[in-house]
């Protein structure tokens, strides 16, 4: 499909790695139709100065293609009119760039809640915010006898990130859930423009704190590809070691938290202990519990000593010994299984249409893991087995996490024996006069993080787009809760564990 669409177009020389082509409105429409027919997956769609980009993935050939359409007079055609998953992405790029997306079925603002000092902050000429109060956000309606609305958030009773959920319920049964996000918008894509590479890397590492390694990894890969540079082999392996440790720690935390939302506190406590052991091993091996700022463009900042290797080895041994007991407890507690099995089902069809990332997709039969399907070093030479379930419920999402923890531990154990020697960081080559760009995809614990970077003279960032996997999984949560009861929402929500910060940017 990609070949049929783009074979006659020549890729732009400035974009390294996967090809990027400029397309016209007809091809853009053809892309939309291919997305609708499910022949292509939409990985990302983002705005730029006078243009809209989209990243496409073809499952059949494992090809990736970036397509760009120019926004003439601030207007660009919509993909969402063909393919609903593009809707929020287009609403966000309209908010940020002031581009009018022609044909976009949902014209409500998404990230812009009417409280920013300017409108279209990323456009060449930001508009001043209108003095009058912006109109109230119009939630989608559900009609029927006895329906009532339950607003939840943005401030919640627990210590979690802010987001608003508008439930329409018939008694206890949820008829419709609509999310409203954007409360943690920090203006990262604006702030990162004009920064030096190292400065920008620090900012990219802070998009979503629990995925800091994955974000640094994705950003570094995009920068290195744009500058035609390759880090030393040892750095590549250490990056993956950190990424797997991050995945293990987060999955352990999630498994415990999901059980806690079913008020089964014992697994929460036990998983919490294992997670803490993982973080402490990270702190001793890499000098930081979350390994923040350890991956930088050009390599890694901290080498792994022999002692550090032993720490991680000991952690793996402990996990292989203690984790199976917890799995057994999870599997054998009938009251817990009663809550997770059959709750919050995401259909295979929806998971495929939304290119559902990470465990959300893999729990609903979507065969995609960036480490396997778009392999980057060192996963190209040290492959992992993909973890897939087919039920699509909370239980399946827990099981994908369990399997991934186990496979990551196995991978770490074999990787520790195969770490190449040598330096861990090289200086980046000087920037060329013309700007260069690249796109990279890295599998974080939530799913694939896509990073697009354009770097100009003096190695300053001209444009950087960081697409959190949550962009693709948040809408599926609305579908998963439909027909379930209100009291099961926390369980479904935790099994998705989408990032607010990464989404709101």
């Amino acid at each position, binding site marked *: 499909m990609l070949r049929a669409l783009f074979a006659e177009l020549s890729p732009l020389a400035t974009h390294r790695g996967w090809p990027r082509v400029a397309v016209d409105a007809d091809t853009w429409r053809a892309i939309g139709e291919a997305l609708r027919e499910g022949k292509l997956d939409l990985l990302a769609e983002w705005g730029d100065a006078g243009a809209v980009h989209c990243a496409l993935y073809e499952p059949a050939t494992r090809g990736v293609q970036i397509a760009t359409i120019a926004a003439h007079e601030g207007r660009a055609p919509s993909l969402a009119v063909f393919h609903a998953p593009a809707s929020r992405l287009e609403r966000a790029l309209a908010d940020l760039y002031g581009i009018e997306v022609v044909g976009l079925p949902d014209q409500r603002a998404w990230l812009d809640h009417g409280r920013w000092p300017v409108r279209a902050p990323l456009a060449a000429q930001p508009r001043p915010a209108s003095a009058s109060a912006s109109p109230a956000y119009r939630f989608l309606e559900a009609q029927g006898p006895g329906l009532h609305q339950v607003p939840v958030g943005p401030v919640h009773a627990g210590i979690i990130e802010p987001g608003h959920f508008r439930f329409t319920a018939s008694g*206890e049964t949820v008829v419709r859930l609509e999310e409203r996000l954007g409360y943690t918008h920090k203006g990262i894509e604006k702030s990162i423009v004009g920064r030096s590479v190292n400065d920008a890397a620090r900012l990219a590492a802070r998009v979503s704190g629990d995925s800091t390694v994955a974000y640094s990894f994705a950003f570094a890969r995009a920068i290195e590809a744009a500058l035609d540079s390759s880090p030393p082999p040892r750095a590549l392996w250490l990056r993956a070691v950190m990424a797997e440790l991050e995945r293990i720690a987060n999955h352990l935390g999630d498994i415990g938290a999901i059980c806690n*939302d079913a*008020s089964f506190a014992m697994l929460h406590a*036990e998983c919490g202990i294992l997670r803490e052991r993982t973080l402490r091993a990270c702190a001793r091996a890499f000098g930081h519990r979350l390994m923040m700022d350890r991956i930088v463009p050009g390599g890694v900042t901290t080498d792994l000593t022999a002692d550090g290797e032993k720490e991680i080895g000991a952690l793996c041994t402990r996990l292989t010994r203690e984790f199976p007991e917890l799995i057994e407890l999870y599997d054998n507690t009938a009251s817990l299984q009663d809550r997770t099995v059959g709750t919050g089902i995401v259909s295979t069809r929806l998971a495929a249409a939304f290119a559902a990332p990470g465990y959300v997709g893999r729990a609903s039969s979507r065969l995609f893991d960036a480490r396997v399907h778009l392999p980057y070093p060192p996963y190209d030479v040290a492959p992992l087995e993909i973890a897939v379930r087919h039920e699509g419920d909370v239980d399946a999402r827990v099981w994908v996490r369990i399997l991934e923890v186990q496979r990551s531990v196995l991978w770490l154990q074999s990787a520790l024996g195969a770490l190449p020697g040598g330096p861990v960081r090289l200086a980046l080559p000087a920037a060329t006069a013309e700007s260069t760009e690249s796109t990279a995809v890295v599998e974080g614990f939530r799913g694939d993080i896509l990073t697009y970077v354009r770097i100009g003279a003096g190695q300053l960032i001209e444009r950087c787009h960081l697409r959190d996997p949550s962009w693709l999984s948040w809408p599926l949560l609305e579908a998963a809760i439909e027909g379930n009861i209100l009291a099961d929402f926390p369980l479904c929500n935790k099994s998705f564990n989408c990032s607010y910060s990464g989404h709101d940017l």
Partner: protein
Amino acid sequence: MRTGWPTQLAQLILVLGLAPLLTGVTRKVRARLLRRRGASVVQPYRDLLKLIRKEVVVAENASWLFRAAPYVIFATTWVAAALVPTFATGLPLGAAADLIVIVALLGTARFMLALAGLDVGTSFGGIGSSREMMFASLAEPAMLMAVFTLSLFAGSTELSSISAFMLGPRAGLSISVALALVALIIVALGENARIPVDNPATHLELTMVHEAMILEYSGRHLAVIEAAAFVKLLLYLSLIACVFVPWGTAVAGAGLFGYALGLGLYAGKLALLGFLLSVFETAIAKMRVFRVPEFLGVALMLGLLGTMLLFVSRAPH
């Protein structure tokens, strides 16, 4: 009768004074089972003190009912708890108020709480009240059936008499009483917002039942409601102890030693029941909201069966 009133007064003070400690102990045990250190067992007292000192914030559209409800809830629960023989039987109030009055008092408290949850008009309060009433429609009859079983068995609805009968030679082992015990335990779990029906420690707005109804309360209002919840837990454990393990309870005129023994044994029984409660809560996950009526329905059926068995087995006489 001379020892009656001092005992009754001591009982009134005892249930109020001991209730926060019981909650503190169950929380501590649960924390230790989860490999946490846990807060001190006297933390509930500190929480109450803290809340009493805090300013009360009342929603703008709250009516007088919202302000009055906490005190009604507290008063009815407290009186109900004072009617259950704890360390000594022969309470003077017991003659005037039997088990059915206790059920009625608790029903009044629940009615006020549900009204207060609805009063402010927030969606969570409404959800909480609606769930509470759904559960109550099964929990209250189940409680009554258990009470009937015991009353028929012992030939009285008065707790001191039931307790004395259980100690006597005619009690023996009875399937009906066992069924009533199980029914009472299930009702106790539901009524006290414990796992698997509700989670007293939850922070998730959408899963709350009891916590959702009191979400709008603060300051001394919240303190009074919390105290009522502590007392209610004590009430149910005392009730189970009084009827099913009555040994050692002091009878009227037992002398100082008898009262001291009764008090010590009562404390031991409470501690044991609190411990068992924590163990049970740790070993099980919370139910789906719609499973709870089934769970409470089991209690109702057991109570009903117990009553019917008593009639059937006595038929030839």
